[in-house]
């Protein structure tokens, strides 16, 4: 005889509980953290390097590297004087909360204001897995096309900040900004958007200033 046992549990609830623990640990140490996600080719690496450069001297930074394919080398970050940890995902398509839990103790958290996590470059998987950061950031870029929110709703749904990179290419690429933004805002009306060009540097100050404010407010609370 077969009996049905009702469960109704979110498939990733175990992951989400560990993510909550990561956030508690970061809060205890007074460290703010951001999870940077992007599709391959969106310019994640140069965006992170520019961000680190802009924040240097303002905030004490640490880096966690989850992307083996396009990462800013953890050694490069360390050479620049930043504490950095490389996570080996074993070819996995996303970071999960356990990976972050393993990586965090390798950073001198008590000495840091902000930990920046570079997630694996992929538009499908990272959105499903909370890792416990305070802010999920997605980098989109002009050449990827204006239909991305419609094709990858899950990814656009789960972030608090959207960076639109490579705005310097607007004159050369067919990209309907209002169509793009309309799709984003239908999925995620509260998202904060920063158009930037890592190439010209345009928009990077606004992002860096906003993030600095966010970190300072977070660390006070």
């Amino acid at each position: 005889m077969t009996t049905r046992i009702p469960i109704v549990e979110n498939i990733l609830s175990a992951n989400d509980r560990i993510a909550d623990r990561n956030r508690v640990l970061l809060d205890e140490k007074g460290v703010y953290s951001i999870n940077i996600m992007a599709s391959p080719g969106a310019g994640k690496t140069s965006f992170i390097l520019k961000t680190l450069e802009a924040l240097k001297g303002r905030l004490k930074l640490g880096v966690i590297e989850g992307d083996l394919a396009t990462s800013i080398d953890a050694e490069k970050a360390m050479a620049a004087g930043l504490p950095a940890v490389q996570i080996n995902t074993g070819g996995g398509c996303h970071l999960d909360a356990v990976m972050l839990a393993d990586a965090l103790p390798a950073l001198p958290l008590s000495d840091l204001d902000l930990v920046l996590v570079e997630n694996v470059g992929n538009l499908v998987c990272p959105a499903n897995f909370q890792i416990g950061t305070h802010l999920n950031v997605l980098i989109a870029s002009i050449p990827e096309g204006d239909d991305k929110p419609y094709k990858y709703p899950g990814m656009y749904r789960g972030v608090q900040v959207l960076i639109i990179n490579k705005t310097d290419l607007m004159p050369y690429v067919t990209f309907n900004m209002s169509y793009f933004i309309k799709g984003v805002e239908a999925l995620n009306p509260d998202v904060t958007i920063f158009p930037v060009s890592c190439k010209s540097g345009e928009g990077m100050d606004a992002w860096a200033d906003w993030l600095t404010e966010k970190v300072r407010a977070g660390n006070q609370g």
Partner: protein
Amino acid sequence: MHELSVTQSVLDIALANAGARKIKQVNLVIGQFSSIVDDSVQFYWDMITKGTPAQGSLLHFERIAGEMTCRRCGHVFHPTDETFDCPSCSSPLVKISKGEEFQVDSIDVE
């Protein structure tokens, strides 16, 4: 893809709820906005359940279509992957009302 870790989570939840009983079927509810590939989950399922009380069990996927509700006129519709505008009044002010489910709904044991 991330189906292996998803499949492992499904098995953990199923085993935790089955006690010592043999699992015959696991019933999943997956919304359209939660990305997961059935075939690939089934493939991993057959692999990782070997030697567990879930060996030989079936996965049943209940798919929930994505649904949006217009915040202006209240019209309920299934969005396409080209536009989320309300087909009734063309408003872009819409919200997701179904399609984010990602659950183990129940298990059938004997």
